[in-house]
């Protein structure tokens, strides 16, 4: 297996999952992942491939101009999807879509650093790798993660409660 293929097969799934969770769009995530691999292949030597890939992918996500444009498109489509789901989707699919919406909104309430730390850790990056990517001390990664996890859980519960309240209001 060539270096190119090894790099791709080893890290592509995790990178796409990380980016999909972060961006909420699989196509966009794959675009960023492809761009990341192109840049990786241009490097003659990578000390830590995984950390490098996730760091570059994270930097690419920060491309604000692109993010803003596509986020608007994405939000519009999500809204359309949600409307369609209400009309046509089976109960299970609807519930899953609603949960995903709650999770997305909860994640969006986190600070960028907390969100990134959470998603990177979810992909198995260790604390030194996360500290490299985020530019923070290794010793503060645990604190960052604990704060991010607590806020995510609390925010998610708040989203679920708000949705339930909206449902009750609509029913009454």
């Amino acid at each position, binding site marked *: 297996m060539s270096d*190119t293929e090894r790099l791709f097969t080893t890290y592509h799934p995790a990178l796409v999952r990380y980016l999909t969770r972060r961006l909420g769009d699989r*196509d966009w995530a794959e675009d960023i992942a492809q761009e990341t691999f192109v840049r990786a292949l241009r490097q003659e030597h990578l000390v830590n491939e995984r950390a490098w890939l996730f760091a570059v992918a994270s930097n690419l996500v920060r491309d604000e101009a692109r993010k803003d444009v596509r986020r608007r498109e994405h939000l519009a489509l999500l809204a359309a999807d949600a409307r369609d789901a209400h009309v046509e989707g089976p109960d299970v699919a609807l519930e899953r879509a609603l949960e995903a919406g*709650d*999770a997305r909104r909860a994640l969006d309430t986190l600070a960028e650093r907390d969100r990134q730390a959470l998603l990177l850790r979810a992909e198995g990056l260790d*604390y030194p790798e996360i500290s490299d990517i985020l530019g923070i001390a290794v010793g503060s990664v645990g*604190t960052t993660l*604990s704060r991010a996890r607590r806020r995510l859980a609390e925010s998610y519960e708040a989203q679920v409660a708000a949705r339930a309240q909206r449902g009750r209001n609509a029913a009454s």
Partner: protein
Amino acid sequence: MPLPDEGLIHTWLDGQLSADEAARVEHLIATDAEWAAAAAEARGLVAASSRILSALDDVPRGVLPAAATRRPLRRLPWWTKAAAAIVVIAGTSTLVLERTPAPTITAGPAAPVVPVVPVVVPPSPPPARTLPEVPSAKRVEPAQRGRVDVVRADQAKASPPPAAVVEKPAAERTVERTVELAAERAAEKGQRESQPVQQVQESPATRQASNLVARLGSQPALSLQSVVVTGLAAPSDAARSMEPQAEVKARPVVDTTPRAVGGGGVARVARDQVMAKAAAPVMSPGPAGELAVATPGACYLLRDSRTLAATGVIMRGDRLVGDTLFLAPLSSASTTRGWVVAHETVLRGVLTTEPEARGMLLVTATMTPCPLP
């Protein structure tokens, strides 16, 4: 006894502490109720956050509007295509007439069966091949070379394959038949125009059209429209190495499976297989309407995914790994490598060279006939 350190507990749960530190935290959790409660809460938060994040994985593909990722295709009116066909076919026949000596040929009522050889898509002058003489042969004058036969699918199915006998000069016959074809196409406009034509190329043209029709007719993805045979039959030594071409035009049947999108394109008829029938995880129209099928063994034309301009690079599908088709160069001397990922709408990926990794490009791939070695 220190107060519980939430960050330290999370670090311990994540297995990121050294052995000494981990032992200390474990001791605190085992001996102090506050530490134990904090650890239990942290475990719950780790599990909850993991579950919440996994809910984000259920993201549909292709939620972006097509206009944001693909350039819209410009549809030409039918008469433009017909005019182009006239120019190409007539020009091709003329070129053959000019380049070939003027022998006479004999041909029987049924065209002989010869092995199928894959050919590169035009442009190239239609080559020639000597037809074996048969007892019932009819003599053909030199001016009749370079003929073009158009065989409707229903005719080809119902009757024997066309004999290599012509009665008019090639250019005249070519124009006549092409105009006929254009008229038929115009009449069949409407619903059928919404689906682009697939072209399946086969050489030599002397292969029995009925075999071809039967083969294509059995393909679930193709509905045969017509067979156009170009080239000439000539017994001269100079022309022996040249091969006539047969062009089979077929329309795709729209595949309604969730991951398949119908589209017209170019497929190749190899010896005993039709590429369009090969088991393919994804079928989709390329930027120019070509068929994009992630299939090992097939050849792919690569385009710059940003400009959609053809790179001129053709690579062969090497193997599928999940949704990823790894591409290998046609020449063993080349160091070009690449891969494409099967999206619902297009095959997208990377073209690169190893080991320098220079000249890398984000590309889209569409299936194209493999060039002859």
